[in-house]
């Protein structure tokens, strides 16, 4: 048919085409999607987040929905206020909320003195945009490796979010989730470029890591005086890595102070988790 020619279309043909326009029927919608949505809303309670996280462990439909949500949000737009999850705003401004639990017992027996703390970004969402996303990121079981920092501040216990503001005296505990065994190392970088090995303390290579969910690390930290941006970098790998090599790579990584971003490239790392903090 030559589209440039005039064609008399019966009105019924137009009506038929309108009726036949495609429709997305999500017959597999999970009734718990509401809980999942609530858990990424501002002000969601810890119990809701826990419930959503537990549900996500067993529901591919909801996991896919969350993956799509974060993927679309990370592209962002002015109209819906989206932005990269990796550059999310601090809590209190629709920042991502973690669905992690923090156990008091996770605070390490060995305390380390930190000059500065770095914030940890979840790198899979990093884009060139810097506007923060309005809603939090759910961590999905099934993603390769995850790393979390828990904060003890006075009597309060909570899980750190990207760009969390740290206070001198905060006690930090760390834990991870991984689907496969491997090795793990955690380092800290301050705004002055000082590096500290957080885990495994005193060792020269990364430590063996077993697969599991929310496994506490034996080492922890106490926050000391500092200013500016800080980052904690968790390096997951199949084989042990030298602390000196990782330190060098992190030291050379591109970093910015507004917002606090660090983009390391570490050879032979299977996953990098970078959590930014502010002082």
């Amino acid at each position, binding site marked *: *048919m030559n*589209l*440039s*020619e*005039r*064609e*008399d*279309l019966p*009105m019924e*043909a*137009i*009506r*038929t*085409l*309108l*009726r*036949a*326009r*495609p*429709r*997305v029927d*999500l017959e597999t*919608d999970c*009734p718990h*999607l*509401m*809980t*999942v*949505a*609530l858990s*990424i*809303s501002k*002000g*969601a309670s810890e119990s809701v987040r826990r419930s959503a996280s537990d549900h996500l462990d067993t529901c591919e439909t909801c996991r*896919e*929905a*969350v993956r*799509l*949500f974060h993927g*679309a*949000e990370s*592209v962002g*737009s002015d*109209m*819906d206020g989206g932005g990269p999850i990796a550059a999310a705003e601090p809590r209190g401004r629709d920042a991502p909320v973690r669905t992690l639990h923090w156990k008091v017992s996770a605070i390490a027996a060995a305390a380390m003195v930190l000059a500065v703390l770095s914030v940890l970004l979840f790198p899979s969402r990093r884009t060139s945009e810097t506007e923060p996303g309005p*809603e939090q990121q759910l961590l999905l079981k099934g993603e390769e490796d995850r790393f979390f920092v828990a904060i003890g501040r006075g009597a309060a216990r909570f899980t750190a979010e990207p760009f969390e503001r740290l206070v001198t005296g905060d006690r930090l505990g760390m834990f991870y989730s991984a689907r496969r065994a491997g090795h793990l190392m955690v380092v800290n970088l301050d705004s002055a470029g000082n590096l500290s090995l957080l885990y495994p303390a005193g060792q020269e290579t990364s430590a063996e890591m077993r697969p599991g969910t929310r496994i506490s690390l034996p080492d922890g930290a106490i926050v000391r005086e500092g200013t500016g941006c800080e980052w904690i970098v968790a390096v997951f790998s199949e084989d042990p890595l030298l602390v000196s090599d990782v330190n060098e790579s992190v030291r050379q990584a591109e970093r910015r102070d507004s917002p606090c971003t660090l983009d390391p490239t570490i050879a032979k790392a299977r996953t990098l988790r970078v959590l930014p903090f502010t002082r």
Partner: protein
Amino acid sequence: MDGNALVEGLKKGDNESRLVFWQRYYEEVYPICARILKSPANATDVAVDLLSDFMNHYVHQLSDPGALHAYLRMMAIRRATTYRNRSAKSVSMAVELEDTNGANPEEIAHWLTLVPRLEGCLGALSPKARQALRLSFGHHQTHVEIGHEIGGSKQYIGRLIKQSLKALKRCMESPLTSRTDRMDEVTR
């Protein structure tokens, strides 16, 4: 009308709540769909379907109004992405055409060639006209029901749909070069 009252009203089928809900959330959901689908016509379809399905079905599963905003955003992204990734849109339309009209394969093939044209011409209609057409032809709603959702009397919706169909007909019958000009009488 606050969130709790709105959700309670929707659950009861209150017309004012339906209107408030539509006016409040269509403008939130549509841009998300448009960003993903890059097509005003398709974005309208997905947004309308989502809001209509929510009001008529999913609202009863909503136990906490605080989840509404995030839920609608999440579903908009999910539905729009699913729509975009459909690999057999023409096939599904062919099935629809055959099922509803008993059209023969030649007619179906011909009508399918009109799909891109229809999509373009729909995109040139006003947002309200697109919503009305979708609710009428996609959801088989009466003019009264449509008016309760997007606003307007039964008579207004009837005129809107009638004029929109005429505009679509003119647009689709026009040679390609003048198609945009033919839509200058689009109903607003």
